[in-house]
């Protein structure tokens, strides 16, 4: 049985809500909620009040005074700032009297006195709240004849964001965002007074993962983003609403293009998901779609290089290879990059061909059985009494989920209990944060649960466990067992899976989950042993992404025939026998599923590169050639078939088409089967236990092919506690040898007192020496020796 949570806003509302307040705006009676601001109530009633500083997702500051309105008071009408004044029963508000108009015109005139009015050369011109409201609420004329301010233009306040100070109207949106929302108050008003300006600390850039948002919310052209500066005029842009699939948060966006080239993504406010925010990686990696290095046509290996071939020849070779392969020797890895339709069609083909070797993950997440627990949404986590984090640093992996949880913790709506090897971005906001080195999280959970204060907290209300793979040098079984230990103690707790890849949940749900525990590791192992005759890489790059580098190499080398379907010639694709160009994000329509199981749409905005095709088309065509025709020719056909065949997808496709917030597909929860806790690996003679965790910017293909992002990766290094550094006897920044019985690499060493003694933190997939050489999937933890050189 399948249930669909359609998220309908409370439709049935019996008697009058005790919090309801009724006010009159311009003679019309309007219902609002106690605590609402007048400006919000007016918005809800479609009465526009001009504003610059007010932003519904940030606290009001009353900075710009543009939102003045008249409210009837005991001594007659008085002017109030509508963004700071809450509604009250019987309040009479007027937004259109001559008095209000005079005030609004006056404010605009004052703002424009200091404003350069260089609209013709300003990126914001055409979509600028100041321009628009000067037109709609200004006097049309200025009495200011003096010389305007001049500043050096522009200053780069980070690698991505530029500031033209003379345009700034000091609305405090960017600085408020940095502090309140991103939690990175690296910009501030300085020289307050007549010369107030937004500025960073000297030589300390606004290096926030969320910096692009300030460009979007700046009500003038003071802040611009390097990737979009002078690229287009707003009236030349076409846009369609879509969903970011860079990670599995699934932030709502608009995809904007001009002349068939993607030029910008902007955040769209989806209440259950991203509240309008995007992270910089998701915002700026559109550049990757435009990259010159994209694959444009099918390639066939000839000798050591590739030759361009036709689709028919390529597909013909593949189908012949598959037809002649021993039954059960075809494997499919990947599928988490594409749409639900892509994953579904490949799963259908896999079923038809009897392929049992398939996995959408590359040993970099958690087993799909994580979906067997009762599932939580982001909103449920942000409303829970207690949120238990058994997850990677969300700021690095699922940035906007980090923003949502941080907000809930800051507003004291939730209490966070964090169990992690090192401090994370949420540690400061946690109610309890305990350090558990790799391999000991189960014990840490049990100890925590035994603490009466923690037990009382957990008993105080709902509990949500955010579960993900924190350490790629630690077997997933440790996280699973820790999650299980929580559920054993709190059976009513629900789980929010923090798997990272864009559509990993969709791919696993739609049939690309491993069968009989035959996961990526065992598939690659089988391949290394010569049991895979055709390995299909569906946007998967095991050589780059599987933590055990040796296994990935052996697996790819051992496969008799490798087909790579990808947007770029990745490291693994370079070893393929045939490479098929795939259409990228923004080049195909479909749906995607975020980490909550929420299905939303993704859209095509530009023409697919070269002759590239959507993955689902390739599956359909290959199926036809192999005698498994699905009779599918359009995306609508795929969606119809999907609705018929997959539990929970019955009504989503039509619902998705009309709703911004999508539909949470909830698949019924099988009963939990107890999970055997792995034995805790004892320390051997190597003194450091390794924590391999991701940074937002790494060598992910979408990042390295985006010029704005490629240089933001911090690079490979090993970080240990300062006292450990002393013991190792190396200087900060010096090269050290990191080794274990498998291999040895050289990395620059750093110290940080937040890293526990005996732990060595190495970021994953960074430019520089590769820690994966020391990781073997059979070892459930990785211990190393660090020596100065």
């Amino acid at each position, binding site marked *: 049985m399948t249930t669909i949570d359609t998220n309908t806003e409370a439709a049935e509302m019996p008697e009058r809500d005790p919090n309801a307040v009724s006010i009159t705006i311009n003679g019309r009676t309007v219902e609002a909620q106690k605590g609402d601001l007048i400006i919000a109530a007016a918005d809800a009633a479609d009465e526009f009040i001009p504003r610059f500083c007010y932003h519904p997702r940030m606290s009001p500051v009353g900075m710009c005074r543009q939102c003045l309105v008249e409210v009837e008071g005991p001594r007659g009408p008085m002017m109030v700032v509508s963004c700071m004044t809450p509604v009250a029963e019987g309040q009479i508000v007027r937004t259109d009297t001559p008095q209000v108009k005079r005030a609004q015109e006056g404010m605009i005139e004052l703002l424009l006195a200091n404003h350069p009015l260089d609209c013709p050369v300003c990126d914001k011109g055409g979509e600028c709240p100041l321009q628009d409201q000067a037109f709609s609420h200004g006097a049309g004329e200025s009495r200011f004849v003096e010389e305007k301010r001049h500043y050096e233009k522009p200053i780069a306040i980070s690698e991505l964001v530029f500031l033209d100070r003379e345009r700034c109207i000091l609305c405090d949106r960017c600085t408020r965002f940095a502090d309140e929302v991103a939690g*990175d*108050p*690296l*910009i*501030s*008003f*300085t*020289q*307050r*007074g007549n010369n107030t300006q937004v*500025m*960073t*600390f*000297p*030589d*300390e850039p606004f290096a926030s993962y969320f910096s692009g948002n300030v460009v979007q919310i700046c009500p003038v052209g003071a802040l611009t983003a390097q990737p979009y500066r002078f690229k287009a005029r707003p009236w030349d842009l076409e846009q369609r609403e879509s969903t970011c699939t860079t990670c599995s948060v699934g932030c709502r966006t608009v995809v904007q293009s001009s002349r068939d080239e993607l030029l910008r993504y902007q955040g769209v406010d989806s209440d259950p998901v991203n509240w309008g925010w995007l992270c910089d990686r998701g915002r700026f990696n559109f550049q990757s779609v435009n990259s010159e290095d994209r694959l444009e046509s099918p390639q066939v290996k000839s000798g050591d290089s590739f030759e361009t071939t036709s689709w028919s020849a390529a597909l013909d070779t593949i189908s012949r290879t598959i037809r002649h392969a021993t039954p059960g020797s075809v494997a499919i890895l990947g599928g988490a990059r594409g749409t639900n339709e892509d994953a579904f069609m490949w799963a259908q083909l896999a079923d038809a061909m009897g392929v049992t070797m398939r996995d959408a993950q590359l040993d970099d997440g958690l087993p799909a059985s994580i979906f067997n627990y009762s599932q939580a949404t982001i909103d449920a986590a942000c409303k829970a009494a207690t949120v238990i984090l058994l997850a990677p640093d969300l700021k690095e992996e699922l940035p906007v989920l980090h923003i949502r949880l941080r907000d809930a913790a800051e507003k004291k709506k939730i209490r966070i209990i964090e169990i992690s090897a090192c401090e994370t971005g949420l540690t400061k906001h946690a109610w309890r944060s305990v350090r558990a080195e790799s391999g000991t999280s189960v014990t840490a959970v049990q100890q925590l649960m035994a603490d009466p204060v923690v037990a009382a907290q957990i008993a105080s209300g709902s509990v949500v466990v955010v579960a993900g793979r924190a350490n790629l040098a630690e077997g997933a079984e440790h996280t699973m067992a820790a999650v299980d230990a929580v559920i054993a103690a709190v059976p009513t707790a629900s789980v929010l899976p923090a798997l990272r890849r864009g559509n990993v949940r969709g791919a696993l749900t739609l049939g690309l989950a491993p069968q009989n525990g035959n996961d990526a590791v065992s598939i690659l192992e089988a391949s290394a042993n010569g049991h895979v005759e055709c390995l299909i890489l569906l946007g998967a790059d095991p050589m780059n992404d599987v933590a055990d580098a040796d296994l990935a190499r052996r697996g790819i080398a051992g496969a008799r025939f490798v087909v790579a379907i990808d947007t770029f010639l990745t490291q693994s694709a370079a070893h393929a026998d045939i490479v098929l160009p795939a259409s990228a994000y923004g080049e195909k329509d479909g749906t995607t599923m975020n980490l909550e199981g929420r299905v939303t749409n993704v859209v095509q905005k530009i023409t697919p590169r070269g002759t590239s095709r959507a993955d689902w088309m390739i599956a359909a065509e290959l199926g036809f050639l192999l005698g498994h025709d699905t009779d599918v020719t359009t995306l609508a056909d795929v969606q119809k078939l999907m609705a018929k065949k997959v539990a929970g997808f019955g009504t989503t496709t039509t619902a998705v088409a009309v709703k911004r917030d999508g539909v949470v597909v909830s698949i019924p929860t099988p009963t939990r089967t107890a999970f055997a806790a792995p034995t805790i690996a004892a320390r051997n003679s190597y003194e450091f236990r390794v924590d391999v965790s991701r940074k937002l910017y790494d060598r992910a293909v979408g990042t390295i092919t985006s010029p704005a992002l490629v240089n933001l990766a911090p690079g490979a290094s090993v970080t240990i506690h300062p006292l450990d550094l002393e013991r190792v006897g190396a200087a900060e920044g010096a090269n050290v040898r990191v080794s274990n019985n498998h291999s040895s690499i050289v990395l620059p060493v750093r110290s940080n007192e937040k890293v526990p003694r005996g732990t060595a933190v190495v970021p994953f997939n960074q430019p520089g020496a590769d820690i994966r050489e020391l990781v073997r999937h059979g070892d459930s933890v990785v211990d190393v020796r660090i020596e100065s050189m």
Partner: protein
Amino acid sequence: MARLTEENVRLAREIIGRYPKPRSATIPLLHLAQEQDGHITNDAMAHIGELVGATSAEVYGTASFYEMFKFEPVGKYLINICGTMSCALMGGEELMHHAESRLGIHMGGTTSDGLFTLEKAECQAACTEAPCLQVNYRYRYRVTSENFDTLIDQLQAGELNSEIPAHGTVASVRQHIPADRGVGAVAPEDVTEGPAWLDGKAAL
């Protein structure tokens, strides 16, 4: 340049302890930094940020509001001559001209020996004693050209050292608040009762 010295870090911690929220100590700590170095260095601001749990940008944002915090080195003696109405009427302008020629610098400049910086100031609230000036925020009233020359002579000779410390020293006597008088690490909204030392003595 300079972060706070070990001794000043100890003082800083004592000052932070006086406030329920460490950030409240930002301005006293900026004074401490200015006392140490004569002006406020970037390193000191970063250090203060670490101590009070703010980013350097936030410390800078606060510090840069205040005219009396200097971000560039100033002379050992900062002389602020009042240029507002009363003083201007009573000869403030002439005094400034005289000061400029005596020290050989323009307003805003610093002598090459690093001893004096001249600044024009707004009303110093000593209008009845116009024209007036301040040396490191210590007053001199009804200043004539001759008084000014004497003042400079005395400062150069080190005769006023006990009265006028080097720039940055707010007071030569340090404020000391016994630990039990501080509220401690309790957020203001969580304080429900009067402090113990008040002990029944009505405060208001």
